[in-house]
C-alpha cells in the first residue's frame, strides 16, 4: 500500500529538551489521523517537522514515496505539496484575503494572476468567504481568519494537510464553522494529520487517533477504541483530565 506519509524513528531536541523521542507513524492516502496529547507532548513539533519548518535530529520522513528529510532535497518544492494551518492563523496582515490566497500560487507555482484569482475565488466561494475577498485579515473574526488560512493552504493543492490546533485560539462559538470546513475536506478525501484538543471532533472525523506522550506515540487505533477503551494508563489519565475539563 502506498503511504501518503511515513514518519520513521524521528527524534527532535530543542537544546537539552528532547521533544520527539522516536516517533513512528504511517498515514495512508485519504486517511484522517488525529494527534491527541497534553501540551508539550510533541504534537505541534511533529507537524512542523513534517513541513520541514524544523530540521529533525534522527530518523526520516517520507511523503508519497519520497524521503523529504534526505540531504539536498528542495525544501520549497516539498512544502508546496504539504499544507499546514497554524493555531494563530498567521495570515499576512498587509494583504487582502484574495492576495493572501493567491500569493503562493503565483510565486511558488508560477500561476498567472488571472488563473490564481479565479481558483482562489472558487475556493473562497466554496467555504463561504466570497464576500470577504477584498477585506483585510484584521477586519475578520477569528473563525473567518482561520477559514481563510485553510483556503490559503488549499490553494496550493497540497497532497497532505497538517492542522495544528486550528481551533485552540478561537472563541467557542466560532469553533464549529472551522470544524465544518475540516469535515468537508475529509469528505473530499483529503489526507490530513490533525493535532487537536477537540475530542468529540476527533471521534467524529478521524480514521485513527494517536495519543502522544512525552515525545512518542504511546497508543493508536480507531477513535472509539482510543477514546472509550484506552489500554495505556497514561492515555486513561489524559482522557480523565479532559472529561473533568468538560471537553469530551
Amino acid at each position: 500500500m502506498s503511504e501518503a506519509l511515513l514518519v520513521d524513528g524521528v527524534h527532535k531536541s530543542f537544546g537539552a529538551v528532547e521533544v520527539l523521542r522516536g516517533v513512528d507513524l504511517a498515514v495512508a492516502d485519504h486517511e484522517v489521523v488525529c494527534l491527541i496529547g497534553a501540551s508539550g507532548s510533541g504534537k505541534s513539533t511533529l507537524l512542523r517537522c513534517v513541513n520541514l519548518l524544523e530540521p529533525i535530529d534522527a530518523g526520516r520522513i517520507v511523503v508519497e514515496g519520497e524521503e523529504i528529510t534526505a540531504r539536498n532535497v528542495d525544501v520549497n518544492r516539498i512544502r508546496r505539496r504539504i499544507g499546514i494551518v497554524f493555531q494563530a492563523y498567521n495570515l499576512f496582515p498587509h494583504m487582502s484575503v484574495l492576495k493572501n490566497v493567491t500569493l503562493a500560487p503565483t510565486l511558488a507555482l508560477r500561476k498567472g494572476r488571472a488563473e490564481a484569482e479565479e481558483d482562489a475565488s472558487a475556493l473562497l466561494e466554496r467555504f463561504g468567504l466570497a464576500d470577504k475577498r477584498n477585506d483585510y485579515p484584521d477586519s475578520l473574526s477569528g473563525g473567518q481568519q482561520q477559514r481563510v488560512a485553510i483556503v490559503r493552504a488549499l490553494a496550493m493543492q497540497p497532497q497532505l494537510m497538517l492542522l495544528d490546533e486550528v481551533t485552540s485560539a478561537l472563541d467557542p462559538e466560532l469553533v464549529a464553522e472551522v470544524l465544518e470546513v475540516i469535515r468537508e475536506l475529509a469528505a473530499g478525501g483529503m489526507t490530513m494529520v490533525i493535532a487537536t484538543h477537540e475530542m468529540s471532533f476527533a471521534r467524529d472525523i478521524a480514521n485513527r487517533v494517536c495519543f502522544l506522550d512525552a515525545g512518542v506515540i504511546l497508543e493508536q487505533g480507531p477513535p472509539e477504541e482510543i477514546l472509550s477503551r484506552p489500554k495505556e494508563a497514561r492515555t486513561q489519565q489524559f482522557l480523565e483530565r479532559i472529561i473533568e475539563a468538560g471537553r469530551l
Partner: protein
Amino acid sequence: MSGGDGRRSAAIAVISTVAVFTLLALAITHAPGWPEVRRTFFDWGQFKDSLPDIARAFLLNVKIFTIAEAFILVFALLLAVIRSLPGPAALPLRLLGIAYADFFRGVPTILVIAMLGFGAPALQLKGIPLSTTFWGIVALVLVYTAYVSEVYRAGIESVHPSQAAAARSLGLTHWQSLRTVVLPQAVRRVIPPLLNDFIGLQKDTALVGFLGSIEAFKQSQIDAAATFNYTSYVAAALLFVALTIPLARFTDWLVARDRRRRQAVGT
C-alpha cells in the same frame, strides 16, 4: 462630556494660551539687551535682503538631500537584508555588514565629509569628480546608510517569525518570503523613524557648506560676514524648519492611513 463643558474648556484653552504668549512676548521685548538682540538677529531689512539668495542656495540643500535619500533608502535596505541573511555561508557578508555599520555610525559625519570632500579631489586621479557637492553627497550617503540600515533591521526583527514560517510553509523561497511578507510589514512599521533620520539628513546637508558648496548655511555665513548681522542665519533656519514640519505631518498621515487600511472592510 456635554457641549457646554466642551465650549468652556475651549474658552479656557484660548484664554490661557493668549495670556501665556502675551506675557512671554512682553518679557522678551522688555528684557535688557533686547534691542541689540533684535538688531543682530531679527533685522527685517537684512532679512528681506538676504532671503532670496539664501532661498536660492537652499535649493542646493534640497538637491543634496533628495539625491542622498534616494540612495540611502536603497543601500540601507540592502545592508539590512544582508545582515539578516540566514546560514553559515553568509557569515562573511554579515560580518562585513556589521563592520560597515559600526564604522560609519561611530565616525563623526563632519569628519567623513572633510575626508572625502577635501581628500578625494586631492588624489588628482583621472575620472574622479572634483565637485565638493558630489563628495558631500557621497559622505552623507555612507554615513546615513549605516544609521538607516539599523532602522530597517529593527523593523525586520519586529515582524513575528510566524509570518516568515507561514510564507515558507506555502513553498515560498527565503527571498520571496522576505520580499512579499517580511519587508512590506517591516518598512511600514519603521516609517516614523525613517522620517526622523530623513530630517537629520536634511539638517546635515548644511555640513556640505563646510567644503565650500554654496548651500543655505554657507550663503547665510557669507551674508553675515558682509554685514556683521546674523539675521541671515535666522532666515536659513526658517527655511529648514519650513520643510521639516510639513514632512512630519505627512508621516503622521501616512501612518494613520496604513492603520485604517489594514482594518478596512473591502468594497
